[in-house]
């Protein structure tokens, strides 16, 4: 760990390398690529939530002037009939409103769209499964007749794809020791990531069997392997070039269009471009899970929590894969408990297959538990911070999911909250204040980086992590710090699958931690090479050379009458000392440090309309070490607004037939700027011992606490609790009316 006082670049706030291209509109996004002879592809989507496909006839579409190709599920390789492939194009059944049924490629998008209306599909409509309650009920229709919980075929088929349990101690004994027990059942609706840029790609297959895909993605290497799997091709036959990305938040960690476009390109010999409409994004891509969570917590009069249980059920959509793992890992992570039981259920419903969304699974389960903890504080008449302080996880606590926490920042965040002027300030008159803790474990995984030195000493970082949150600036800052040269001398590029080493997808708040570590190691490789070159130049041993402030110098005590050699000096003469300077590193990063947060918000409720006005919001979070504090604050603010939106108005609305009724930003209500107060932030820095500069991922944690913080604030304002989200005006007014009539 470098000493904080020594840092020169890290912790500063320079402009981002990709900034000018974005603010001038020059940056190329997913839909910006056009190629000569290109066709436009469109997808025909299911109008039913659940139906058997009896027949598909594309002949009338193919007969339309300008239509070059029309395909359906049967045209795709047999082998791709796994969940991913069937989600991309349906085979025998459609499983949700918007499920892709067929596709056309035509000379214009308009013709392609007209052709969709000429595809004849005969359906046998089946009863859809539209909620967790329905899915778990006796005699519920089955989304998938072959699904058995955890693959156990000795049990009857079920809508529960997976069940998991984590436990410690004896919860019955723990609850028996409790003076107070709080129990509640909480529902959180399906939420969309709200990225501005719809999914888009262009694909071109060559006659030699090699294909290229240009697309907007959080992970070009996953697009490559997933597309190869769906089309039964060799991974190395496909090149994926990531564009700039107009938001992802987890939603661009999978594929939808790419195999369809590449397949139609192979059939036609022409490039095929596909761009989703906003409606398609809502109906057919992966949001995060709607959930039903039961939380129970017991404590002694002094606030010591004696036991806690959480029963979680998450909608997976039509295919297994709800984030119950992270939901279970997170729900009790802030607490040091002797007795707990956490159960998770991955539940199939006839809705789109869920995808990652910022801290996948954690906001929902922690909403339930942090509301329960809030009720516990009320029942015990304890300050909610003091209650958490008394029970909080700290260094040495064994996390509910197994490992023992190294140094973590939860206590520091709680202390910072108590000391914060916004917390000491009185809450608004007739308003309420709510507080909650957030958590994300963070991940490491595989990353590669190259650092290339130009003849003038300019530094190019080549890495493979699409930049969704300012990571290129962070890479440049870490390189600047490590190499000891100015930030402005460095540029960072996100390479395509042929141009850079393998990187796992940008997600789970891994990039600044893991790819950052690869960049640091690649810079250290450069420094080692520079010391060798200097030693060669000076006729010294390499261990007689130091690297200081961006230049090679003889070590103290070494008798050499030489001038320091800068990176530019060494680069200029690199041809004479062994060739170009090229540093590299590849790793599987271990020790991603968990990031805790404390959020609180002040609200007022219009009791005649049920409208909630968010008056203030403060987020405190442990960043380990903030490489670029402005972008850390930006993550905290963005996550807070997404969490507030989810708490207040965001939800997927389906009719009784399972058709989505609000597939657009008009009626899927993410907050507008004027809805939000200033999101105040405070970064806490408890360094992660596993990272050279102490970095913890910061991108996920910010969305976790706002849900419960908002619920708790509304509870405080109203004097009674509304258990379900969103706290939309009709729900709040109905609850107020019920309370008044009770």
């Amino acid at each position, binding site marked *: 760990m470098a000493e904080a006082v020594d840092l020169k670049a890290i912790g500063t706030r320079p402009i981002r390398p990709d900034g000018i291209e974005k603010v001038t509109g020059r940056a190329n996004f997913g839909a910006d690529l056009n190629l000569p002879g290109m066709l436009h592809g469109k997808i025909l989507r299911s109008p039913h939530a659940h139906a058997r496909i009896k027949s598909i006839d594309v002949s009338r579409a193919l007969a339309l002037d300008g239509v070059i190709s029309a395909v359906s599920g049967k045209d795709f390789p047999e082998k791709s009939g796994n969940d991913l492939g069937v989600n991309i194009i349906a085979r025998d059944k459609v499983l949700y409103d918007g499920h892709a049924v067929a596709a056309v490629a035509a000379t214009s998008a308009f013709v392609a*769209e007209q052709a969709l209306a000429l595809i004849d599909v005969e359906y046998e409509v089946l009863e859809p499964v539209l909620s967790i309650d329905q899915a778990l009920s006796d005699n519920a229709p089955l989304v998938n007749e072959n699904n058995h919980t955890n693959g156990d075929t000795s049990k009857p088929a079920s809508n529960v794809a997976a069940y998991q349990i984590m436990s410690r101690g004896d919860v019955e004994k723990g609850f028996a020791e409790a003076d107070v027990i709080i129990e509640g059942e909480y529902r959180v609706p399906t939420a969309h990531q709200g990225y501005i840029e719809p999914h888009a790609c262009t694909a071109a297959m060559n006659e030699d069997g090699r294909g290229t895909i240009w697309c907007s993605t959080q992970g070009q290497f996953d697009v490559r392997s997933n597309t190869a799997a769906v089309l039964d091709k060799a991974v190395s036959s496909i090149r994926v070039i990531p564009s700039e990305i107009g938001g992802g938040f987890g939603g661009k960690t999978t594929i939808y269009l790419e195999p369809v476009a590449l397949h139609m390109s192979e059939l036609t010999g022409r490039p095929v471009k596909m761009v989703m409409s906003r409606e398609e994004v809502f109906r057919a891509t992966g949001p995060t899970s709607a959930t039903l969570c039961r939380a129970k917590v017991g404590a002694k009069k002094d606030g010591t929590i004696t036991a806690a249980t959480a029963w979680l059920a998450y909608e997976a959509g039509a295919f297994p894969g709800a984030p119950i793992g992270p939901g279970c890992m997170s729900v009790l992570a802030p607490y040091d408990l002797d007795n707990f039981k956490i159960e998770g259920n991955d539940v199939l419903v006839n809705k789109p297959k869920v995808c990652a969304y910022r801290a996948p699974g954690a906001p929902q389960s922690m909403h339930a538990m942090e509301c329960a903890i809030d009720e516990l504080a009320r029942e015990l008449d304890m300050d909610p911070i003091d209650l958490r302080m008394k029970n909080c996880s700290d260094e040495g606590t064994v996390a509910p999911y197994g490992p023992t926490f190294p140094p973590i920042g939860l206590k520091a965040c709680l202390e910072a909250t108590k000391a914060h002027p916004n917390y000491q300030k009185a809450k608004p008159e007739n308003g309420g204040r709510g507080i909650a803790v957030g958590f994300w474990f963070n991940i490491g995984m595989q990353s590669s980086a190259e650092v290339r030195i130009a003849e003038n000493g300019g530094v190019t970082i080549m890495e493979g992590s699409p930049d969704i949150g300012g990571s290129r600036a962070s890479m440049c800052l870490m390189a600047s710090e490590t190499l000891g040269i100015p930030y402005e001398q460095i540029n960072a590029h996100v390479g395509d699958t042929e141009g850079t080493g393998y990187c796992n997808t940008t997600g789970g708040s891994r990039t600044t931690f893991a790819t950052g570590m690869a960049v640091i190691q690649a810079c250290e490789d450069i420094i080692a090479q520079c010391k060798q070159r200097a030693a060669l130049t000076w006729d010294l041993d390499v261990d007689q050379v130091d690297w200081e402030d961006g230049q090679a110098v003889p070590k103290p005590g070494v008798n050499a009458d030489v001038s320091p050699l800068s990176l530019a000096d060494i680069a200029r003469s690199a041809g004479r000392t062994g060739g170009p300077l090229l540093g590299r590193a590849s790793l599987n990063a271990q020790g991603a440090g968990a990031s805790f947060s404390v959020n609180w918000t002040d609200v007022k409720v219009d009791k*005649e309309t049920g409208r909630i006005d968010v008056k203030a919001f403060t987020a405190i979070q442990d960043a380990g070490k903030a490489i670029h504090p402005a972008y850390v604050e930006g993550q905290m603010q963005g996550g807070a607004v997404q969490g507030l939106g989810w708490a207040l108005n965001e939800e997927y609305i389906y009719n009784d037939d399972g058709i989505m009724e609000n597939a657009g930003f*008009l009626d899927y209500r993410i907050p507008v700027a004027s*809805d939000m107060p200033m999101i105040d932030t405070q970064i806490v820095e408890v360094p992660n011992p596993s990272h050279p500069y102490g970095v913890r991922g910061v991108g996920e944690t910010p969305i976790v606490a706002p849900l419960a913080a908002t619920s708790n604030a509304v509870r405080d304002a109203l004097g009674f609790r509304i258990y379900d989200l969103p706290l939309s*005006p*009709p729900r709040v007014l*109905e609850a107020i009316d019920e309370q008044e009539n009770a």
Partner: protein
Amino acid sequence: MSSYSYAAPTSVDEAVEVLATNAASGQRTQCLAGGTDVLVQMSSVDREPRLLVDVKHIEETNAIDIGNNEIYIGAAIPSAILNENEELKALLPGLIESADLIGSTQIQGRASIGGNLCNSSPAGDTIPALIAVGAQCVIAGPDGTREVATEDFITGVGTNCMSDSEFLLGLKIPRPGARTSDAYLRFIPRTEMDIAVAGAGVALTLDENGVCTAARVSIGAVAPTALLVQEAADALIGTNVDDVALQAAADACSAAASPISDKRGTVVYRRKVVGVLCKRAGAIARDRASA
């Protein structure tokens, strides 16, 4: 390949001729002012070819005339122009506020009251405000111009009383006299960029003692068309527009509403909130009239 055609007449006669000729040919016609509804519909839900008749290059659709007895607002005047007109804002604060609620600042550079009215959505924000101030719609057609009260202009969800060869020229509003003012409020879950879940416009006149001598109350987004609620006006007339009278007007609005439950709100919710909006808008109009 299908295509659109476009005409930009510069006089009322020319516009009427283009419309009549096209209507006779059986081709679809749609008038275009700022395009904030039409262009969005064309790029999303309804791409069928048509003749677009751009009516904003005609003098009468672009005029504002504040007369001693009557105020005229051209149908194509963008909201942004109205919002900047201090005299209009002083005379018709509720109506101008309703125009200021449509879309974002950028959208308001194009969006017009006339367009909002011709789009004829049940949730159009300017419509209850226009009904409250007693606006007459001036319609140009082959037989000259005719005038229709706003509450009679709209005939259903997305439909109005104009034929294919007619277009909206502008709006005539009686100039508010002494101690007369108006207010419009809508409810949306957000603070802007949204569509009314319910709306209420109130215009009223007070005498020297603060007693209401005339009132018009209109509600929106709670029925297939915006409604003029006479019972609500009657509840205010003859009172000091105090809380009791306002509550009676609110109850009349709730009773008059025949809303639907949809993604934007339930029947129960809309019924209740439209009353709350009437009450609040009535209080604002009263305070303005007595100021």
